């Protein structure tokens, strides 16, 4: 198991390096950064002055090395728009987004996996139909619309949950449901399909032939094998939720990193965009790495891969 982990870790670092280079080069791909900084009315001299001031005139690899070295220590430069250190700008918002993402994926897993298992035990039963209905509805319902419905119901009509902000756990209930519900259908259907497949396999028949009870057959013998693809999917979705929670963050006025990313792109605030891309990518790489390790623990055949 240890050689596997080390190998995957090395791979993850390699990917991280590549991603960091790409996110750095964004600065140059999006045009002349000095001109962008100087603004539309600036003269050629102003632009040149800014170019030397920010060091854009030096070789790209030197700039990349410098940027990466600072980034590793948590220094992402200064935001063009807020004129504040990017790091301080990001920290709070990242916490909100992380918390929301973790709650969202947990909610999704805790509802989708049991539902998927129940649906697979009795295909075409009431519970299977309910699960199918929920998953179709989950895919058809746009997040912003679902979020608004919840606000109308729970904040306006029943007045039990606050419609916006991030001050207490109660502020996170509705965003969690909306974000989690978005990830649920895929997880549920993958669990159901996996369980159906595994429950028909020869080794499940062997377990029954040994006299194992239904609970043992389902949870010890079947679920462990059926859940493997779900782990990988959950990691991808978790990464996706961090970057893609903009809609949810906007609807509930949660000032998170997703919202910040969207704003910064609109304002051409490159240092902030770079930092966010780098951080989101690192999270994504970390989740994928953790999923690989978890899967290798679940399925010994993957350990040699």
């Amino acid at each position, binding site marked *: 198991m240890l050689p596997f982990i080390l190998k995957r870790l090395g791979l993850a670092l390699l990917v991280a390096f590549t991603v960091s280079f790409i996110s750095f080069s964004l600065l140059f791909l999006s045009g002349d950064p000095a001109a962008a900084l100087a603004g539309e009315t600036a003269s050629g001299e102003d632009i040149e002055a800014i170019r030397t001031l920010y060091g854009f005139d030096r070789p790209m690899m030197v700039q990349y090395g410098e940027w990466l070295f600072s980034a590793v220590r948590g220094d992402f430069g200064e935001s063009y728009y807020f004129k504040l250190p990017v790091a301080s700008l990001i920290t709070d918002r990242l916490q909100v987004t992380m918390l929301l993402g973790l709650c969202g994926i947990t909610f999704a897993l805790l509802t989708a996996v049991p539902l998927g298992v129940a649906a697979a035990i009795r295909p075409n039963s009431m519970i299977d139909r309910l699960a199918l209905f929920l998953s179709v509805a989950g895919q058809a319902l746009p997040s912003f619309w679902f979020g608004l419905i919840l606000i109308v119901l729970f904040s306006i009509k029943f007045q039990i949950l606050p419609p916006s902000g991030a001050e207490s756990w109660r502020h996170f209930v509705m965003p969690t449901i909306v974000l989690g519900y978005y990830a649920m259908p895929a997880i549920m259907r993958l669990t159901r399909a996996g369980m159906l497949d595994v429950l028909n*396999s020869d080794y499940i028949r062997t377990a029954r032939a040994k006299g194992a009870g239904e609970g043992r057959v389902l949870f010890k013998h079947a679920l*462990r*094998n059926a859940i493997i693809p779900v782990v990988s999917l959950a990691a991808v979705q978790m990464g996706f939720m961090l970057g893609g929670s903009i809609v949810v963050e906007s609807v509930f006025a949660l000032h998170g990193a997703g919202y910040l990313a969207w704003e910064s792109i609109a304002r051409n605030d490159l240092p902030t965009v770079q930092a966010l891309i780098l951080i989101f990518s690192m999270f994504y790489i970390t989740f994928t790495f953790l999923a690989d390790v978890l899967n290798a623990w679940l399925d010994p055949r993957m350990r040699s891969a």
Partner: protein
Amino acid sequence: MTEDTLLEVRNLTLDIPAGGGTLHAVRGIDFDLKRGETLSIVGESGSGKSLTSLALMGLLGNSIKRSADVMRFDDIDLLTASRKTMRSLRGNRMAMIFQEPMTSLNPAYTIGDQLMEALLLHRRVGRAKARERAVELLEKVGITSAGSRLGQYPHQLSGGLRQRVMIAMALMCEPDLLIADEPTTALDVTIQAQILRLLVELTREMNMAMILITHDLGVVARVADKVAVMYAGELVETGPARPVFARPSHPYTRGLLRCIPQPGKTARGADLGTIPGIVPSLIGDVTGCAFRTRCAHAQPTCRKQIPVRGEVPHQFRCVHADGAISAERETA
């Protein structure tokens, strides 16, 4: 029915709902088995052998309808036994090994865990004791360095080794009855003989009854006490192995026997017989002899009720009083 009868089955019938009606997969079969005896069920694939064994184990899917006049294991009525009773029998007093060693072990658990499971489920023993027993059985089935094998996973073993593990697993609780459903079909020819020899030795040593399912009559001749020839869900001929092989009475049994090479008699490269034709569909009403569509001696009366002929214990079902053996000699 004598005292040492372990298993008694009368008129076992299995119906499966299918697209255009009901699939009569097993149609009223009878057999019984004494302690320590080996019964071999032979027949082409699709004749209902696996379903019969799953029915005994109580492992049929919910959609399959089972009925019988008698289905008794020792002093337990399998027809009325609760799920809990069946569970306490499986892996404990009756065990089964399957045709597909490559897929019959759980890929996520070690050989050791899977071996110990049945013992831990059915006996009040600790893990240390269970481990000891697992090592003992692995050695018994001829696996070297058994202790270190316990930590290995199924994908690290070859098919032959996996089937040995399956056998060891089935024997953990010293069952009274072992059902082996084509245990060697998926293995290399050289390994087939080893595995069979092992099964025979172990059943003798443990005084265990065995139902050995196979479509290889050559195997049966060497190991079985009794033979049941199954065709399209029916037993067409049953009896002690010796008379059945000496005087095969049903045309289908003789057809099967012609398909096996006989040492010293069959010339190298000589044509082995095959039975032309295919097994008829068992969906909807099935009347008369199911083999008539492939039988050289079929006649109009084969569509009617078929009498049981011969004397207990060697019996067969055929309209011909002698199973058409005289007719066959004439044409030969």
